[in-house]
């Protein structure tokens, strides 16, 4: 099912399919007409995707069919072996962790995982982690430090789960701890926002040396819906909130919050998963190559400085 703004593209694509079928059936040569339409389709796609509103990007970031954490773990990496459990509270399905290699190099991987269908979404709690998920991530940080394995985190969550049990188990405490623990890693760490970077629940595994984001992914202090509900007391104003929050990849580069945008294939990652996965892999390999030469202390210091520097303020006149 196309996203709302994809409907004209889908309509035109359907028209071309029809025409091809007609031409073939009737054995008429419509090559020229079809080529023209195809060119128009390409232009339409480019025009559409180059000019997505922020709210439309939010929709792309959340689109069904967009590659999820596990899709990257299984296809951008080799030999992914999942390690379960935080040894304390449980095994949170909303966070998938383990070991893998990336172009032959061992890495620790941590991915927030939304469901790829309704059943999985319920199992994965829609990618909203409980404290156990962050504790599992922290166990992986320890493993990474001990065995000197670079860390790759893939961020895709509406946010940390706001529920009774999560609060009882110290959701705030564990996010804070995870931020601290990740900032202190003595191995290279790269994070990629692959879909939705939802607030503290995303940042908890996003304190990396390099923070990357897919072109149509978002990263925000609050969801547009919640923001609208607070500011205009109307979740329907989400579109307006999305604009105001400046939560797209380009916005975030401008703010210095992310370091690099990974382009998506034309039409978005959900329309060409393999290419998207390949592009993420390529970016990760490049980034890790830059970092593996740095000493543990330098990596840690660099992370300190990167996050210490974020923010905008001015002198009081």
């Amino acid at each position, binding site marked *: 099912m196309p996203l709302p703004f994809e409907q004209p593209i889908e309509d035109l694509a359907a028209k071309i399919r029809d025409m091809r079928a007609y031409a073939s059936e009737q054995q008429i040569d419509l090559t020229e007409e079809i080529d023209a339409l195809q060119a128009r389709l390409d232009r339409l796609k480019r025009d559409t995707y180059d000019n997505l509103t922020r709210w439309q990007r939010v929709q792309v970031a959340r689109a069904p069919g967009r590659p999820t954490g596990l899709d990257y773990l299984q296809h951008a990496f080799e030999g992914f072996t999942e390690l379960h459990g935080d040894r304390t509270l449980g095994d949170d399905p909303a966070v998938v962790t383990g070991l893998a290699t990336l172009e032959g190099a061992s890495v620790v991987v941590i991915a927030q995982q939304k469901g790829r269908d309704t059943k999985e979404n319920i199992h994965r709690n829609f990618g909203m982690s409980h404290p156990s998920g962050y504790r599992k991530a922290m166990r992986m940080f320890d493993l990474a430090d001990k065995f000197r394995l670079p860390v790759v985190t893939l961020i895709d969550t509406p946010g*940390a*789960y*706001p*529920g*009774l049990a*999560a*609060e*009882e*188990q*110290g*959701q*705030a*405490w564990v*996010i*804070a*701890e995870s*931020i*601290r623990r990740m*900032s*202190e890693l003595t191995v290279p760490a790269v994070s990629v926002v692959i879909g939705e970077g939802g*607030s*503290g629940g995303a*940042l*908890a595994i*996003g*304190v990396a040396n390099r923070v990357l984001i897919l072109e149509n992914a978002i*990263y*925000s*202090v*609050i969801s547009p819906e*919640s*923001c609208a509900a*607070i*500011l*205009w007391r109307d979740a329907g104003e989400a579109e307006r909130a999305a604009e*105001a*929050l*400046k*939560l797209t990849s380009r*916005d*975030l580069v401008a*703010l210095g*919050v992310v370091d690099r945008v990974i382009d998506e294939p034309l039409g978005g990652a959900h329309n060409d998963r393999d290419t998207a996965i390949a592009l993420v892999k390529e970016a990760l390999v490049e980034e890790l190559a830059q970092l593996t030469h740095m000493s543990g202390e330098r990596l840690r210091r660099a*992370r*300190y400085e990167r*996050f*210490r520097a*974020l*923010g*905008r*303020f*001015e*002198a*009081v*006149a």
Partner: protein
Amino acid sequence: MALERWFRRNKPTRKEEDNSPAGLWLKCDGCHAQIYRKDLVANRYVCPECDHHYRMPVDARIDLLADAGTFERWSGHIQAQDPLEFEDTQPYTERIEKAQKKHGRPDAIVTGAAELDGHAVALVVMDFAFLGGSMGSVVGEEIARAAERAAEEGRSLVAVTASGGARMQEGALSLMQMAKTTVALGALAERRLPYVSVLTDPTTGGVTASFATLGDVIFAEPGALISFAGPRVIQQTIRQDLPEGFQRAEFLLQKGMVDDVVKRSALKGRVAQVLKLLTAGLPEPTLEAPRAATV
């Protein structure tokens, strides 16, 4: 008149800083008794009848914790920009300006040096009255600076939190203050300087999920609401009433999240005691050999 001087000149009045109910007399939220306002203020904003802890103005908090005449303000030299050109029902710049005028400070925080029962500390006090104590770039920066300066000067850090969370109007930059404040605490840890965190009503969201809960020792004030997600958000999630006392200081003590719930009347003493004990450790291992050699 330069804004900075304006900030410094104004002594906050009741209207600007004090969030307890107004009027000469008030009906206590805790025990419904009629209390004389002056008695409440004299009692550090704690009901003399039932011990209900009201929110407390920043300056009163500093008076409570700092030894008389020792507080030296560090904060106040920076103020918010408007990196998102954020506008909701009013532009962010206007919101800030109004809050600055009303509360007499550039943002929702005051930091400074003080003695606390003779212990050299950096004091960080959040101002919930200023845009809900929300943490944007300025609040984050002031906390990070205070932590780093404390580390340099060999001071312990004492932070009194009160915040609705991250400041939406600065978008992802506000979110990043969670990381910024957290990494800055590392400077203290490296020098083995204690960090005591005091959670007051309310401490929620991004502040709770960063520096506030990273204290070596964490105290909470009686009855304080302390949470990641706010009660309303959780109610929407679970669609049922929350249990009595949920997310309150006493609940969190029971859940193992805070070291103790401490009454305001005992707070300074308890903080001082912990600072005394944590700063009396054995000499640094690296210093042992030379010391042993010279003694």
